[in-house]
C-alpha cells in the first residue's frame, strides 16, 4: 500500500519521481479502487501536471493529452465520433469525470473501454523518457509490453476514420466480456478487441479471412473462431469458453458487415 504521494506539477517532475516502487495515478478510478492490483509504495499524482489535458487538431490528426477525462472526450467538438462512442461505453458520468484516456491505456485492462478502438485506428502514443526525451510508439507496441510503466503524454489518432465498435456486458456498469472495434483502411479491415480475463487481442486471422473473402459466411467465421488454438479463452463467471468464442465470431462478422455496408 502506498505510503507517499507526490503531486507532480510538470511531466519532467513526474518522470523524475518514477522509481521502481512508484506508480503514476491519473484519474484514480483504477489505482484507488477497492481490490486494485496496485501495490506501489509511492503514488505520483498527475492531476496538477500542466499541459496534459489539451485536445488539438492538426493535419487530419487529433492529439489528446493523456489526462483528458472521458467526459472531456464526450464533450469536446474535436473528439472523433468513434472515440466518443467508446468513451460513452463508460456509463457513469461521475466516473467519466475522473477516468482519463492515459489511465485507461496504462491500466491495460482486459475489459478496456478505449484500447480496442485506439488499436483499430493505429493510435500513436507519445511517451516521456526519464532523461527528458520523448518518443512515439504505436499503441499495439505498448500493449505488447514495450514502455509499460513509462508516462504517456498524449495519444494521436486520425480525425476521421471508418470505425465501428461493440461492447457486451450484463449491465452498463458491469465489466465487459467483450469489447471489439473494427476499422476499414486501404489494406482492408482491422479488428481489435478486449476479451475479459484473456487480454487485448489483434484478430489477424479473422482480418485475413475477411480480406481474402469479403463474402465469407457467418458459419465459417464461427467455426474458425471455435477451432482456433491460439485463442486462450476459458470458462469463468463472465461466460463459458464456447460462449466467448461465439461472441467474438458473430461480433467480428457483424462489425465487418456494418463497415462494408452489407448488413442485413
Amino acid at each position, binding site marked *: *500500500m*502506498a*505510503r*507517499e*504521494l507526490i*503531486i507532480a506539477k510538470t511531466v519532467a517532475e513526474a518522470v523524475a519521481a518514477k522509481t521502481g516502487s512508484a506508480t503514476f*495515478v491519473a484519474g*484514480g*478510478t483504477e489505482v*484507488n*479502487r*477497492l*481490490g486494485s492490483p496496485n501495490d506501489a509504495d509511492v*503514488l505520483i*499524482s498527475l*492531476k496538477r501536471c500542466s499541459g496534459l489535458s489539451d485536445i488539438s487538431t492538426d493535419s487530419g490528426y487529433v492529439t489528446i493529452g493523456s489526462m483528458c477525462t472521458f467526459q472531456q472526450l464526450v464533450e469536446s467538438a474535436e473528439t472523433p465520433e468513434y472515440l466518443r462512442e467508446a468513451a460513452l461505453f463508460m*456509463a*457513469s*458520468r*461521475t*466516473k467519466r*469525470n*475522473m477516468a482519463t484516456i492515459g489511465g485507461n491505456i496504462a491500466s491495460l485492462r482486459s475489459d478496456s473501454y478505449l484500447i480496442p478502438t485506439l488499436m483499430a485506428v493505429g493510435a500513436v502514443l507519445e511517451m516521456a523518457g526519464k532523461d527528458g526525451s520523448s518518443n512515439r510508439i504505436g499503441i499495439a507496441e505498448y500493449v505488447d509490453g514495450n514502455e509499460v510503466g513509462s508516462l504517456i503524454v498524449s495519444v494521436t489518432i486520425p480525425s476521421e476514420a471508418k470505425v465501428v465498435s461493440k461492447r457486451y456486458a450484463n449491465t*452498463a*456498469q458491469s465489466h465487459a466480456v467483450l469489447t471489439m472495434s473494427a476499422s476499414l483502411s486501404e489494406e482492408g479491415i482491422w479488428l481489435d478487441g478486449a476479451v475479459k480475463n484473456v487480454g487485448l487481442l489483434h484478430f489477424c486471422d479473422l482480418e485475413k479471412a475477411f480480406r481474402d473473402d469479403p463474402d465469407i459466411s457467418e458459419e465459417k467465421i464461427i467455426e474458425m473462431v471455435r477451432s482456433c488454438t491460439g485463442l486462450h479463452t476459458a470458462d469463468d463467471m463472465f461466460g463459458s469458453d464456447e460462449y466467448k468464442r461465439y461472441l467474438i465470431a458473430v461480433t467480428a462478422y457483424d462489425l465487418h458487415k456494418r463497415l462494408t455496408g452489407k448488413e442485413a
Partner: protein
Amino acid sequence: MSKQYKVVHCTINGKEIEQVVDVRSSLADMLRNDLRLTSVKKGCEVGECGACTVIINGEGFNSCIYLAVWAEGKEIWTLEGLTGPGGELSDIQQAFIDEGAIQCGFCSPGFILTSWEIVNAGVEYTDDQLRKLLSGHLCRCTGYENIFRAVKKTMLRHLGKFEEAELVDSQGITEYPEPMPFK
C-alpha cells in the same frame, strides 16, 4: 510532518476547512470519518454504485476513489449542504419524498446530488438524456421510476413549467391532456 500526511484546504458546504489527511485516504473517508458528513455512503468502493457522489466544483465525482489530497482548493458539496439553515429540505429532496423515490435510503444522497446538478443546469433534458445522466447510480429498491419522476418534475419546475410537471405520470412520461399540437 511525515510524508504520509498532508494538509488539505478546501470549502465544504460553503465552509472553509483545513484538514490533515493521510495521503492514502479517499475523499469519502475524509468527509465521513474526519468531518462526520455521513450522508456520503461507501457502497462498492470501486466507483460504480454512485452512493459516494459529491459535487466538486459543480460536477459530480465518486468520492470513494477520489484522493482526499486532490480536494485542495476545491469547492465541495455534500447532501448536508443542500438543506436550509433551519434544516429545511431543498426542492429536490422534497420531491424524492413526495414521489416515494426512497426506500432503504442508501443510494439517495448520491442520487439527490446528481439530480441537484441536473435540475440546476437550466436545461430541459429529454427522458433518454435524464436516464443517461442518472446512470452512474445503482438502486436496489425503488426500480428507478420514482427517482426518475422526482428528478423530471423538479427539473420542469425549475424551468417554470409547473403545469407540465404535474402531468408527469407514473412512468415518468409527460401526459398531455389535449392532442399534441402537431396532430
